[in-house]
C-alpha cells in the first residue's frame, strides 16, 4: 500500500492572456444561418450581450446570426468576413475552456480519447459556463457530468474525474506539513488515549466504485491500460508541502482517519478499528493479531503524513 505522488509536482498551468488555438475535431462550424437578432442601433450593453450570445454558441451549431446581420455591427476586413472575424473569438472562447479542462483532467482525456473528451468538454462548457474571475474551480462539475453522459464506462469516467478533481483541490487547499513520529514521541504516554489528531486540511477521502487510482498511476508510469471493471476502492488525496499524494486506503485506515477527522480521540478511533477487525475475525486467538493490525494501522496513518496537528 504505497502512496504515490502526482507526476506534476509544480502545479496547474497558467490561464494566460494569449489567444489559445486548438486543432478542432469539429468540422467547420456553419457560419451562415437564419438571423435570430433584429439589429437596430445597439447600446454598449446590447452589443455585449449580442457578441456573447454568438461566441458562446457551441461550435457544432450554426452561429445565431448570418453574415448580413453580423456586418451591421462588425466590419469585415480585407481578408475576413464579419462573421469570420467574430468566429475567431468563438473559437478562442471554447479553446481556452477546453484547455483548462484538459489541464485539470489529463487522464480522463486519455481514457476517453481526444475526440470524445473534447466533445464532453463542449457539453460541459454549454452546461456550466464560467461565472467567476478565476478558472481554478471551473472544472468542478466534471464528475457529475460524466455520470450523466453516454460514455463507454460512465461510472469509471466519473470516478476518474472525481480523483483528478481531488488533486486540483489539494493543490489549492491550504498548505500544511505533516506530523511525524518525532512529534509523537513528545506526547506523554498517559495522554495518548485522549489525544486528538487534526487531519491534513487538504485531505479528501474518495470512495470509488472503480480502481481509478490504479488507472491514473499506470498512466503516469506509461504502462499499458485498459478500462477497468468495477472494484470498490477508497483513496486519500492530500498535499504535504508541494507534493500531492494519492494513497489507497484499507478499510481499517478509512475507519481510523474518518473517525479522527470527526474529532474522536485516538482511543475511540482505535476502538472503532478494533471493532471492525473483530467483526472479520472468525477464529479464537485472533486478539493478538488484531492488536498488531490496529497498531500497524495507526503507524501507517502517521507515516503517510495524514495528520497535521496533535492536540492533548
Amino acid at each position, binding site marked *: 500500500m504505497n502512496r504515490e505522488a502526482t507526476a506534476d509536482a*509544480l*502545479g*496547474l*498551468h*497558467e*490561464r*494566460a*492572456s*494569449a*489567444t*489559445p*488555438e486548438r486543432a478542432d475535431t469539429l468540422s467547420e462550424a456553419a457560419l451562415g444561418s437564419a438571423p435570430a437578432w433584429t439589429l437596430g*442601433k445597439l*447600446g*454598449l*450593453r446590447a*452589443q*455585449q*450581450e449580442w*457578441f*456573447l450570445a454568438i*461566441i*458562446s454558441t457551441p461550435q457544432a451549431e450554426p452561429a445565431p446570426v448570418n453574415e448580413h446581420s453580423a*456586418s*451591421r*455591427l*462588425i*466590419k469585415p*476586413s*480585407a*481578408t*475576413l468576413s*464579419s462573421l469570420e*472575424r*467574430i468566429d*475567431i*473569438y468563438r473559437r*478562442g*472562447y471554447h479553446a*481556452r*475552456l477546453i484547455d*483548462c479542462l484538459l489541464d485539470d483532467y489529463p487522464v480522463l482525456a486519455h481514457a476517453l480519447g481526444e475526440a470524445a473528451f473534447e466533445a464532453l468538454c463542449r457539453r460541459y462548457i454549454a452546461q456550466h*459556463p*464560467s*461565472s*467567476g*474571475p*478565476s*478558472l*481554478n*474551480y471551473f472544472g468542478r462539475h466534471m464528475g457529475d457530468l460524466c455520470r450523466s453522459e453516454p460514455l463507454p464506462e460512465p461510472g469509471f469516467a466519473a470516478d476518474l474525474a472525481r480523483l483528478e478533481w481531488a488533486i486540483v483541490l*489539494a*493543490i*489549492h*487547499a*491550504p*498548505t500544511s506539513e505533516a506530523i511525524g513520529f518525532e512529534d509523537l514521541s513528545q506526547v506523554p504516554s498517559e495522554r495518548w488515549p485522549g489525544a486528538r489528531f487534526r487531519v491534513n486540511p487538504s485531505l479528501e477521502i474518495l470512495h470509488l466504485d472503480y480502481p481509478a487510482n490504479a488507472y491514473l498511476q499506470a498512466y503516469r508510469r506509461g504502462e499499458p491500460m485498459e478500462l477497468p471493471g468495477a472494484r470498490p476502492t477508497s483513496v486519500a488525496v492530500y*498535499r504535504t*508541502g*508541494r507534493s500531492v499524494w494519492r494513497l489507497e486506503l484499507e478499510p481499517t485506515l478509512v475507519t481510523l482517519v474518518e473517525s479522527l477527522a470527526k474529532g474522536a480521540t485516538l482511543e475511540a478511533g482505535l476502538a472503532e478499528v478494533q471493532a471492525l477487525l473483530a467483526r472479520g475475525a472468525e477464529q479464537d486467538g485472533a486478539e493478538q493479531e488484531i492488536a498488531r493490525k490496529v497498531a500497524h494501522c495507526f503507524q501507517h496513518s502517521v507515516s503517510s503524513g495524514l495528520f497535521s496537528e496533535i492536540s492533548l
Partner: protein
Amino acid sequence: MRRVVLSGEKLMANRFQLPNLGIGLGLRTTHYSTILEQKPAVDWFEILSENYLRTQGRPLDFLDRIAESYPIAMHGVSLSIGSTDPLDRQYLSELKALRDRCRARWVSDHLCWTGVAGKNTHDLLPMPYTEEALAHVADRVRAVQDFLGAPLALENPSSYAQFTDDSMPEWEFFGRLAEDADCALLLDVNNVYVSSKNHGFDPLSYMNAIPFDRVVQFHVAGHTDHGTHIIDSHIGPVIDPVWQLLGAAHQRSAGVPVLLEWDAEIPSFEVTHAEALRAREFIGVDA
C-alpha cells in the same frame, strides 16, 4: 499613491513615478523549479493575477518564495473594465490583497471586456471605440483606482474585430482614456503589430498617438500568422518587426520596463530569458 521601491530600482520619468524594473519575464509554472533552485539573474517577473486568486495553496507558496527575491508586477485578465456588468468588488478586494502579499509594483489589466450578464468568457473581447464606451470605461477605471489606491495600468489588447460604429481609432481611444481616467498604460507592441495587420493600419500611427509619460510597461511576445489574420498566441520568439516597434516605442519614452510573454510551447527558462534579453538590442544596454 502607493509605491514600494527596493534599493537599486530606478525611478523614471513616467508621471506615476513607477520604477523602470528592467527586462522581465512572465512567470510560468514550468519555470518555477529553475527560478527557485538556480536564482537566475532576472530583473523582475510579471504574474497572471488570476492564477494566484481563489487559492490557498501551492501557487501562493511558489509566489511567496519568488517574491522574496524578485520584484513582481501583477497582470490580470478578469477585471473586465469594459463590461456593462457592475465591477466585481470581491475580485478587486482579492487583487488588492494579492498585491500587498507579493508587494507588486503595479497592477495591470486589459482594455477589453471579458463577459456580461454574469458570465466570464476569460477572453479579451473587443470594445467599440465610441464616446459612450469611452465615458463608461473611464468611469470604471477611476473607480478601480480609487479602490486600489494606486494607478491601474491598462494594456492595449490584440483584436480581431472592429465595430461599425467606431467613431475613433483605437490609439485615440486608448490615449483619451488614459487622460480622462488619469490611468497608466501598458503598451504591448506585439498587440499593436497584430492589430495593425488585422485591421490594416500603420503601427507607427499608433505609437505617435500614445502619451508616453503614462506608459509604465512594455510587452513583447510572439504570435501566429495565419495569412488572413494574426492570432496573439504568445508562441515562439518575437519577430524582428515587433522588436523594431519596441525600439520605436522606447525612443518615445524615458525608459520603460520590458516584459516578454511566452505562453504556448514554452521553452526552457534559459531560452525564454535569452529571448527577453534580446530587448537590449533595441532599447540600449542602459535600460
